[in-house]
């Protein structure tokens, strides 16, 4: 199952990249297509944040991960680099669980 998913993602993502370089622009370059394509990453990434942080199975929960996310927000406001944000959030969540 996992390998199938890996290969589907690999082939699909490559073809999506190649399509952009190969397809005549007029096929896809329409305002509505551009707007939707521009908003898809925003919607998906936001949903991924929410699901990663505030759910366990089918339940909505607030635990150490929420604290980690709060730390990530602060670090992003301080313009910290990506790795600092990611591991900073992990560190705080880990410490919170120890307490």
């Amino acid at each position: 199952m996992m390998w199938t998913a890996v290969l589907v993602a690999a082939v699909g993502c490559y073809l999506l990249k190649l399509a952009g370089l190969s397809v005549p622009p007029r096929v896809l370059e329409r305002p509505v297509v551009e707007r939707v394509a521009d908003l898809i990453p925003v919607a998906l990434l936001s949903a991924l944040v929410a699901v990663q942080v505030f759910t366990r199975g089918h339940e909505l929960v607030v635990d150490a991960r929420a604290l980690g996310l709060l730390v990530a927000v602060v670090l992003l406001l301080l313009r910290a680099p990506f790795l600092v944000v990611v591991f900073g959030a992990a560190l705080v969540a880990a410490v919170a669980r120890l307490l």
Partner: protein
Amino acid sequence: MTDTPLPAPQRRAIIRDSLGVGVATGAYGVSFGAVSVAAGLTVAQTCALSLLVFTGASQFALVGVVAAGGAPISGALTALLLGTRNTLYGLRLAPLLAWRGVRRALAAHVLIDESTAMSVTRETRDAARLGFLVTGVSIFVLWNVATLAGAVAGNALGDPRKYGLDAAVGAAFLALLWPRLHRRRNQLVAVAAAAVALGIVPLAPAGVPVLAAAGVALVAGVLTKEQVR
């Protein structure tokens, strides 16, 4: 656009800037490797994702959905939806890079956020190609080395929750989302998408809530009139 050869100082500046972006971006492959094995993928699967999928947000999405208990194929679908933005980058870059045949097929693999950003603003074809290639190739090499390092280290650590790696996933998605949040419309879409996803979590199989949130982008894109840029 002109095809005059690139002066040496300008060439050096593009190489330096592109390598800088390459090193900074490639390094966070460490976090992808660690997060991926924490989600339950093997080191081989993790490395295959970085080698073959090679577009960070899609890779994080796939392992994120799996980490939340979703079916791997829902993870792959989420990865594909996120990968659609590379198609738009390609449309912008195609006339600028103007590669054909094998070169185009190879270039497509390193067509990602950063290689686009480092080439789309250039004024000549030479400059665009140089920025694209140096950024894309340096990220590809470092991202894969870093992924392997992160995956091996993550495996050696054991229970990922003990190190807060489950919290790292959310932080990684937020950091990827952050630069897209400066516009009011995007903020509203982000809040609505999170609400839709959380609202569906109790009802739907894992993986589905995130895919459903893409519907928010569709509705917002069709209903608003604002230009992309």
